[in-house]
């Protein structure tokens, strides 16, 4: 149909909007509200764990071994009599710090490498793309297990693994945007006037990609939470007696018949964290760019 309505040129970038406007947009949707509540609660737990947690997460009380939920211990006690609720509250500290450091580190490294690949020589681009494809082909959990077996497990090891595996997503986005920007007229113009093309690209990259990257981070956090809790569940993540959602789940898994309350309780924060951040990402994406309909990879 040839209606004579003048279409505005489709902007390649998410329009820059005030944070308040974006938040209002997120809050206006049911799933967005659910996501915001989940995320804020988790962040509060992580930040204020010592004040919120009713008991000491590592205090062993043999008498309360595998006790079900009670007025004193809302989510019951584990195989050492420790308070499950307090362990989960403290676990959110590990989960959130790994999530933000992991996703943030991946974002930073991905941006640097993406810029290098997009702006640097062709061979470097080829090599980096090949590496990126390779990383995406390896089952992360298997690789993580191997690394942990080789070097021992610690929070920094886990973060390093996560950065390695989350990087390709950011790398691809930044690289393709750099390739687009590199060919733009104003970059050529700036270079013609003696300015460094790279600096022009960098200056335009963030405003053009800010929204996309923010959404990517929100969508990646569930995967990061899954890796950390998965590794801890396998006993290869955070080491005892430190509490992590995965390790509480692992404790409960061994007693799934006698004391199912432990696995039920330990799974919930993982469920709420993954769902919360995913729907936050979706709501952010809709708020920043109502046209897109894409999905994320599982």
């Amino acid at each position: 149909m040839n209606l004579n309505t003048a279409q505005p040129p489709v902007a390649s970038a998410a329009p820059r909007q005030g944070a308040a406007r974006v938040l209002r947009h997120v809050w206006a949707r049911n799933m967005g509200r659910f996501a915001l509540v989940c995320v804020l609660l988790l962040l509060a737990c992580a930040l204020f764990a010592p004040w919120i947690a009713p008991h000491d997460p590592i205090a062993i009380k043999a008498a309360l071994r595998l006790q079900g939920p009670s007025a004193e211990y809302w989510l019951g006690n584990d195989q050492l009599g420790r308070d499950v609720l307090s362990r989960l509250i403290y676990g959110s500290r590990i989960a959130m710090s790994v999530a933000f450091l992991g996703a943030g580190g991946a974002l930073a490294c991905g941006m640097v490498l993406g810029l290098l690949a997009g702006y640097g020589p062709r061979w470097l681009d080829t090599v980096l793309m090949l590496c990126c494809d390779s990383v995406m082909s390896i089952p992360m959990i298997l690789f993580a297990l191997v690394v942990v077996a080789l070097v021992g497990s610690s929070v920094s090891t886990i973060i390093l693994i996560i950065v390695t595996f989350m990087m390709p997503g950011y790398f691809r986005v930044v690289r393709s945007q750099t390739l687009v920007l590199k060919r733009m007229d104003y970059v050529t113009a700036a270079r013609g006037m003696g300015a460094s093309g790279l600096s022009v690209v960098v200056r335009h990259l963030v405003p053009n990609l800010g929204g996309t990257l923010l959404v990517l981070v929100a969508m990646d956090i569930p995967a990061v939470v899954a890796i950390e809790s998965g590794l801890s569940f396998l006993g290869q993540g955070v080491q005892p007696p430190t509490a992590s959602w995965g390790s509480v789940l692992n404790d409960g898994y061994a007693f799934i018949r006698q004391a199912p309350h432990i696995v039920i309780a330990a799974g919930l924060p993982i469920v709420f964290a993954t769902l919360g951040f995913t729907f936050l990402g979706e709501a952010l994406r809709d708020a920043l760019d109502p046209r897109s309909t894409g999905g994320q990879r599982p």
Partner: protein
Amino acid sequence: MSMLLDIRRLSVSYASEHGPLQAVRNIDLTLEKGQVLGLVGESGSGKSTLVSALLTLLPPGAQASGQVIYQGQDLLQMSPAQRRGLRGNGIATVSQDPFTALNPVVTIGKQLVAFQHHKPGSKAEKAARALAMLERVGLSDPATRMRQYPHELSGGIRQRVAIAAALLTEPALLIADEPTTALDATTEMQIVALLRESRDVVDAAILFVTHDLHLVGSLCDHVAVMYAGEMVEAGPVAQVFAAPRHPYTQALLACDPARIVTPTRTLPFIPGHVPPPTAARLGCPFQPRCSHAFGPCASEALPTTPLPFGGMVRCHKVTAHA
């Protein structure tokens, strides 16, 4: 001759964020059996919406009023199932863009068989008819074409296939919606010639939609000119081309390079823009661009003046001089 299509006071509007957009306004148009009618207009004149209405393929948000009477039945009053029964079975179309009009993952042969789903007969019979039709539309080696995929064929050949597909349904009304716009000039003339010949193959009236008056002259016996959703002039080609009454038709004809007698370096054009299809409109839509505009043009509703040989024109100036 008997009446095949009778459009009476057809209006179509779409809902939009900025209020309703009226793409077609109060159109009257008739098409007789065996007639070839050229429908001319610029982008935004509403001709594509008119075609969609005839194909009963208006988008869900569109509001149509008036009557579109095809063989005695009003298309606008039909149930969806009845409409579907007419599409590809009486009314057929050749679409604008041969490069996207065919399914890319199905062979030509299978598609030509599928298009005949209203017709009786086995798959083999339909395939045989498709093969014969491909030959009639002038394709070399039709058996190979049947096994090929659209992307393996050139634009001209694809448009021939599309015409063959339409002819296979033995339509009473063939709507060719700018069938040559996407093609180069040589191919364009071949396709127009093929459309002319296709009248010998099936006994169909053809509605040839275009923005190119030159093609209308070489193919059609009647012409209707649309501007900004309204029909401004209609009549036999010979008459309209020889003595255009509406200033817009006159301007269009003046822009046709084939009609320019005095050598010039600059091609003539009509200054200004087509008015937007926002609902409210006073007077003649062409008034802002018209060099003959006077008093009533800006404020009074357009009159319809009948012309000899079944033509008509809608212009205040013509009425005033009549």
